[in-house]
């Protein structure tokens, strides 16, 4: 006696719906859209879009042009300070969006190079602004390119087919040609040049979407480098840091983020939704009452300044404080007050 065989996949064939155009089952496509009596799959939709494009019919409506103030405001939510850099980034994003949306054949804006200390908040800032601008976004961790993993693993470029996009080249400092990896760094920098000049990249799932590509020439590249020693960024100073002149000369905008001052760090801690509030709320969630006094905030700020901590560094200090607090036995119903002495005792 054997046993009956089962349905192994979600939905047996009997229940499976099929695309009315290509007859592929819903299991074999990414999305199946139902009409009153017919179905169409994502792949057929793409083909239709391509046909329309060939006939000069606009493929996608223009994205709503974002307002620079809105982008700056979005960035402010993430990191205080950096007023001028924020304006420059906002202007670049808007110019790029308008430029690409107005003309389907036009290349994207010249790339932007941003330098700042490690943990200065570069990445958070740029991501927040790109998202606010409603652009497609992908983050390429440049150091991973050493392993020849160029765009294969985890980046989904699907949105880039539909709207103007930004590729963030994160940690580009890792490929500055220095030391014994100079040759490898050169190779990666050269591959970045080809990418900026224009390469056809397949969208995420090669097997399923092999015929769909997008041209990186129509993308805005924003490179982020942790080079705290660089007070001023331009093509020449970057070439001195180990970048190929032919790579840096492709960048049109250079922005250097200055270190955050006391006021900025204090705002990061105390503003609404800031690090201090987040910390006390975290404890409150578990029924523990913690009060971080002003003297403790001042101590954290001073510690941050001494350690040249950026956004990330300050968060690390607060996290460390949080862990120390989580080892305390806070009696039920009582509040634990954190003062400057507590901070000094646990963080120095």
């Amino acid at each position, binding site marked *: 006696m054997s046993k009956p065989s089962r349905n192994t996949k979600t939905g*047996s064939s009997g229940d499976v719906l099929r695309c009315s155009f290509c007859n592929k089952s819903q299991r074999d496509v990414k999305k199946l859209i139902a009409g009153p009596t017919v179905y169409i799959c994502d792949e057929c939709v793409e083909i239709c879009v391509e046909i329309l494009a060939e006939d000069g019919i606009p493929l996608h409506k223009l994205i709503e042009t974002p307002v620079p103030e809105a982008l700056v405001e979005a960035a402010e939510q993430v990191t205080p300070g950096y007023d001028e850099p924020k304006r420059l980034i906002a202007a670049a994003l808007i110019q790029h969006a308008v430029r690409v949306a107005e003309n389907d054949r036009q290349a994207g804006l010249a790339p932007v190079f941003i330098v700042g200390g490690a943990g200065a908040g570069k990445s958070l800032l740029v991501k927040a602004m790109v998202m606010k601008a409603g652009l497609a976004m992908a983050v390429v961790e440049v150091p991973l390119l050493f392993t020849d993993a160029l765009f294969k693993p985890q980046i989904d470029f699907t949105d880039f087919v539909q709207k103007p996009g930004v590729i963030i080249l994160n940690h580009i400092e890792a490929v500055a040609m220095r030391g014994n990896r100079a040759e490898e760094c050169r190779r990666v920098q050269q591959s970045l040049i080809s990418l900026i000049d224009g390469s056809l990249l397949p969208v995420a799932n090669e097997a399923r979407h092999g015929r769909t590509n997008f041209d990186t020439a129509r993308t805005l590249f924003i490179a982020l480098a942790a080079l705290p020693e660089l007070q001023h960024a331009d093509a020449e100073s970057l070439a001195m840091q180990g970048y190929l002149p032919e790579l840096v000369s492709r960048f049109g905008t250079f922005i250097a983020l200055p270190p955050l001052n006391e006021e900025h760090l204090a705002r990061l801690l105390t503003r609404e939704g800031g690090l201090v509030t987040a910390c006390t709320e975290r404890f409150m969630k578990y029924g523990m009452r913690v009060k971080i006094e002003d003297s403790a905030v001042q101590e954290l700020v001073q510690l941050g300044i001494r350690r040249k901590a950026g956004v990330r560094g300050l968060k690390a200090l607060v996290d460390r404080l949080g*862990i120390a607090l989580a080892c305390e036995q806070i009696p039920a119903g009582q509040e634990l007050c954190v003062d400057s002495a507590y901070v000094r005792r646990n963080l120095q």
Partner: protein
Amino acid sequence: MISSTTLDLPEHRKQAELACEAQGFSPLMMEQLGADRASGLTRSLEMVDSCEVYLLILGARYGEVPDGSAISITEAEYERAMARDIPLLTFVAGEDHPFPLGHVETGAGAEKLARFRERVRKTHSVNFFTNVDEFRDCIINSLTQLRDSWRVSDFHYVVEIPAAPAKYAAHPYSLLESQCVVGRSAELEQLDQWIRNESSDAGVTVITAVGGMGKSALTWKWFSEMPPEDAARFAGRMWWSFYESDATYENFTARALAYVMAMPLDEALTVPVARREQRLLEAFRTRPFLLCLDGVERILVAYARLDPQRVDEDELENVKESEATRLRRTANPDVGKFLRKLRRDSASRVLITSRLYPSDLESPAGLLPGCQDIKLGGLTDEDGIELWRELGITGDDEALLDAVRAVQSYPLLMSVLAGQIANFPAAPGDYAKWRQNNPSFDPFAVHLKEVRDKVLRQALADLPPEAHLVLMILAAFRMPVAYDILQPLCVGGAGVFALDSELFDALAELRGRGLIGWDRPANRYDLHPVVRRIVWNGLQEPGREIVFEMLESYFDASPMVSAVGASSADALTPVEMLYSTRLSLGRHAEAFALFRDRIMEPLVHRMNHYRLGVQLLEPLFPDGIANAPRLADPEDAHTATWVLAYAYDYMGEPSRAIDVWRRLAGVPGLHRTSAMFNYATSLWTVGRLREAEKVLEECVQVARSPDKRSYAVYRAALGYLASTRGADDRADELLLDAFNAFGQSRPINQPSDASPLLERAWHLLKQKRTGEADALARRVLGTETDVAQVHLDALHLQGCVLMEEGRYDEAQKSLAKALSIACSLGSEVETGVTIRLAELYARLGWLDEARELLEDVWEPLERGPLRIWHADARNTLAEIELAAGRKTEAVEAAREAYRLAWCDAPPYAYAKGLECAWAVLAACNAPKPLVIVEDSP
């Protein structure tokens, strides 16, 4: 290479050596040259030629100038390093660095030194230091910058496989540094005798003890320090630790096979797991190997979960006996099967350490023959005192004995307590004074676990905050942590330390206190499981959340293998770590997105690791699997539930799948009937025939249109169920109807697609219409499909048809082929095919072989439970015993078969099962057994 003069810089060189080792470099130093000074220069230069990084330290001396040379050995080394153009780090003592007068070179030497310093200063970016501490910070930070911080860190420590008989320690015991093995002579002697006594029938020795008693340390000492004459008894010796992140059973079989058969690992990996097992068993049976399996509790049901490090041993002790037996069983029945086989007729010896004795190696009567259990207790008084002294604790014997007894001779506690006493500033290492100064220390609790918790908590309370912090980060992992992972987590931007030297200090502090172990060659750190649990329990929820967030941001930014690229379960470890971290943060949706996009396809669908899939998915159902998962998106919730149920079924545990299918069957929508159908199948498998039929009838009702494929599938299943319970007329009608509805050719995309053909064929076979059944099996085998399960089902059927026709050779071939596919698929059909093979062997008169085959199926049949097959297996055993003339055993087996086949009582009983059982009972003149109603499921 560390290059400097030695007289003036002994402490600096020591610090440089430690810093190099802590960062994963293996320092070359002239101290390693020994006394062969004649060729000092030549050999020093050879060292420079073989190094990858050159470190120059200039102090107060120019150093020895060899005869015939104008420059010192140090400067010559420096020139050679320059010529080689390798990374060069330079450290120069400042003018105000104090040196003892006798160590400061004067005269010509001083002039040469000044010139050399100037030359170095002009050529390089020099690190100046004014004392040893500054030097230490400089060197740690310089080495960190030199290291490629973006190097992809492996979670798994991979050791090259040596050629046997050289010993193969796949995972060296990394906690050894914190676990002095002192004494234990009785146990070591017992182990020695075990291998020396060739007539001993104990093939398997299990060392059991609570965590921290020193099982692994003892076993490792015995394994690694085995005298040559004992080692020579073995064709090879292998050590495997299940505490490691890559220590899956599949990986074990591959590495063990590569070692035992002296084949490349890549080749071993291509061999299916079941075949690896067979080849290993054959090798272990014929050649004497020693296999040490450390931390076997990790693969038992109690610990086989995503966070084994959080299992509370104390809770395990408070469960009922039947539950305890279940918890002590191996989570993967194949492992239990493998261990059971190893103990029999084997030339080899297997040593297991485990907190719990695996119930696979026992029966209700006690330990299985061929197994022995050594229960490890505390140290003897003498050993305890010796250990104290070894750990640097001073005092008279009486005081030390008091201390030994205070911690109940528990080695882990002794080493942790020794760490505290050694750090007592007023009198380092003096127990009496320490005790005097710590009146609150009162470990004399009644229960060992209370003592343990007290001592460990006190040790943690004494820690500096930085060290405590590192300990908590280490405790968040479930495996040893490489420095390459720890460093970016702790230092810099998002880390808790600004400087590497702070991390370095914290780790040194923890090592010194016996709280962590350092695996020097792999540069990894680990906590003892007991310490890990206490540390973690001492951190309240908000703190755990912060630690998990740190881990999450680290893993999120780490490179991970794509779903397409993953070729083995251990390649998915970083993804799994991120997955479990997100789960710990309560971010179920993001965790599941990771599972869906990165893990599901390779792990469950491609590699058939159903069990691991279940381990990953179950935490998504914190309210129990009968309830909905914590996923807001209905599609995600549905997929998670479906894959969980599917995995339960395929790992051979349909009873667990039933509740899940039932819930899915109640969810309106596109997949409802599919879920109902699978629900019915699981009910059928566990013998709940009445409910199965009801659900199938509902399926047919829902799939009303006769031309739909599902209509044919559901009708066929209903017909097959009728055939099972002996309603042959109804079965004829339904199966023919389904067959006609199926039509001539349909694509076969999943196993159930072929069911209208196969299930009719099984029914025809039951009616002895073998020709027609064979034709249908051939038709399915001839259909183009990439669904291996369909081939497996068809071969299974064909084997049975051929057996019925008496074509035993061909039947054996078909069944063997089916078995091989079932093993590679990890399919529960393996059990069904094995029963069929046993039946074939019985018909061929190979009774012992048949009985042996059945030995493998009892456990999965009970675990499932797979009631219908269980009835078949008991009937086959009954026939074997009858043929062997053992009537009592035959009657016993037939009665059990009869009870199992009874199911929901006729007409919802397994008709053929009852019939076969009754035939044996009748042949033995035994009455029909009484079936107690409660026996029915």
